[in-house]
């Protein structure tokens, strides 16, 4: 593995957008001659951007959990549910399977993403060569599950659209769902800004 040369070793840089390979001019503001997008050997300021987005996502995750995300009005019984109380209610009211799904999507996945991204960032920044292959797999996993953690938002949107039976049953979204959506979107952005090639850059510091 160490024998294989990297693009930077060959003085090459690839365009992220159109895939065109150009000569690495080492200039900070180089752009692709074909499509005009900026050329970088690595994603620009990947660490700081990912960190910034990750922190923002974490901040939004607090109101997303504290504020109620959904109000269900059924036969006059008004019920405001936060993510956790909704899960508890689902569990108590006899839908443990649904409760597990929602719990996974709304709690496990975002928390996992925070941990995974933090782990990737810290390990990459420290140039650790520990479990590089597993770490890159973890990154791919984070990217993949990113879309699915919008489940709560989808559930609320779907319920709001479907369950409008007027007096008997009503579902309306509450502010919490906005923060939850922001959290999901920003963590997705964070995982996008992270440059997985940084995982493999570690060995430079070893030499």
């Amino acid at each position, binding site marked *: 593995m160490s024998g294989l040369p990297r693009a930077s070793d060959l003085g090459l840089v690839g365009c992220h957008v159109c895939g*065109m390979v150009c000569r690495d001019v080492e200039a900070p503001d*180089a752009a692709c001659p074909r499509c005009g997008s900026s050329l970088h050997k690595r994603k620009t*300021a990947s660490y700081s951007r990912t960190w910034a987005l990750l922190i*923002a996502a974490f901040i*939004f995750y607090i109101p997303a959990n504290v504020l109620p995300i959904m109000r269900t009005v059924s036969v006059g019984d008004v019920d405001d549910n936060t993510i956790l109380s909704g899960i508890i209610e689902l569990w108590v009211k006899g839908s443990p399977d649904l409760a597990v799904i929602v719990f996974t999507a709304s709690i496990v996945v975002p928390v996992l993403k925070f941990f995974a991204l933090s782990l990737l960032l810290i390990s990459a920044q420290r140039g650790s060569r520990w479990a590089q292959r597993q770490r890159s797999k973890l990154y791919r996993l984070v990217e993949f599950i990113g879309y699915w953690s919008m489940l709560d938002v989808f559930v609320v949107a779907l319920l709001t659209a479907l369950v409008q039976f007027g007096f008997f049953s009503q579902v309306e979204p509450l502010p919490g769902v906005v923060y939850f959506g922001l959290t999901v979107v920003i963590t997705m952005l964070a995982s996008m800004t992270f440059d997985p090639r940084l995982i493999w850059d570690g060995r430079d510091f070893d030499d």
Partner: protein
Amino acid sequence: MTDDKKPITDDLPEPVVRRPRVNASIVWLVPIIAALVGLSLVIHAWIEAGPTVSISFLSAEGLDPGKTVVKYKNVTIGRVTAVRLSEDRSRVIAKVALEKSAQGFATADTRFWVVRPRIGLGGVSGIDTLLSGAFIGADVGESSEPKSEFTGLENPPPVTHGAPGKTFDLHSDDLGSLDIGSPVYYRRIQVGRVSTYHLDKDGKGVTLQIFVDAPNDQFVTTSSRFWNASGVDVSLGADGLKVNTQSLATVLAGGVAFQDPPGPHDATPAQEDAAYRLFNDRATAMAPPDGEPKYIRMRFEQSLRGLAVDAPVEFLGVPFGRVVSINLDFDEKTQTFPTIVGAVVYPARLGKAHDKLVALARERGDDEQMSQMMGRLVEHGLRAQARTGNLLTGQLYIAMDFLPKAPKVAFDGTAKPLEIPTAPGDLDKIQQQIADIVGKLQKVPFDSIGKNLDQSLGELNRTLKQVNGNVLPEVTNTLKGAQQTLGTANSAFAPDAPLQQNLGGSLQELQRAARSLRVLTDYLGDHPDALLRGRRADDKLQPAPPPPAAPTQGSKP
């Protein structure tokens, strides 16, 4: 290493170099914004957070932490955050986070109560809570003294602070089926409710406080009469079956009704906290003022089955009073059990008659109005009678009427209580008459009548035997003789009897002779000369008299 690769890069396109771009660290704005948003939420929550109060209730029924809200005029002003038991476990304490805008509710005279669906007390209330769950109602007072621990009311207060209207006091003997919140009706429209009640200090009655909403409080005048309109007033008394109710709600929950008495009266709107008497029913409420009650006694020598305490006493048909006691007495002299009936009467109910009688008594200088008056009336035949008011139930009432034929009685005008002489009732009269009839029937000598009748029948029997033995055979013989005679007469007159045949022949002969005689007389009329010359020859040509034989026969002799 680098030298080897150089040739590859030579063919590659050169990147375009552009002017410097914005600093990449602008991305840190995102977490800053996120932090600001988060901070603003915290600040908002902190600003919005009002005072926290704790309210104690007897039961936590319907109180759900996080869900149960506190409402004032149906606007949510707070929310129950926690419910726990008090230290002595006798009550539950609900922690309520009030909103910032509801700061004024954490003051000394604010009242809290749990609104649950309840039936009764003026209808069904809180029906919406059946669906939405209970909530805590709040009513704010005027105090500004801060307070954070409250004792919740178990029932909604009937009157909220500052509600327009007036409060009045009602005095009653007992509470009946009234309760806090019971409706107050005016012309069968609810205009208020009972707000509180308490026992009088001497324990001899109940004072209710009612609240009548504006603008209907103006209908309460100084002469208004209040009565208990609770439940269905079904009275099967001596005066028949009466069903009276104010509304269906009063049947369930009871209520108070008021109205001005008919006729001219003072219609000034009543002052706040004016006191009234609460009558038991409309009739008593609307009755003319009773005046001073008088106690009278009556002694009946008859069974008073059907007479009950509270039975009416009527004076010439006017409701005059009520029976208050019925007691049995024992008379040693006559060895009888007379019934002593005590009654309370209100002479003032007689209206004008009473006024005049009083005036007359005054003129005569009688002090003891009632007894003197009564003395005179008794002289004129005033007697009390127990009469049947209701044939169906046999209930009795006491009627005071003038019975001119009543035997004179001694009347003690000074007796206390006054004893009104009595007369047997109409039913007793009928009984008396029946007894008389029975007595008269008893005097009839049925025994001797029977004996005589028996003797007469024996005689008759003997006579009949004689008739059968002697008279009847004789009669038979006589009849037989008569029959024979009649048979002979019959055969004599039979159509084929010889007597009949002879008679027929004779009559024919007589007819023929008569005809001959007529021919002869006709001929002689035409030919009178024939008497002298005899019959002429040409007469033979005449065909008219073909049977000449007969006339000749007859004419010849």
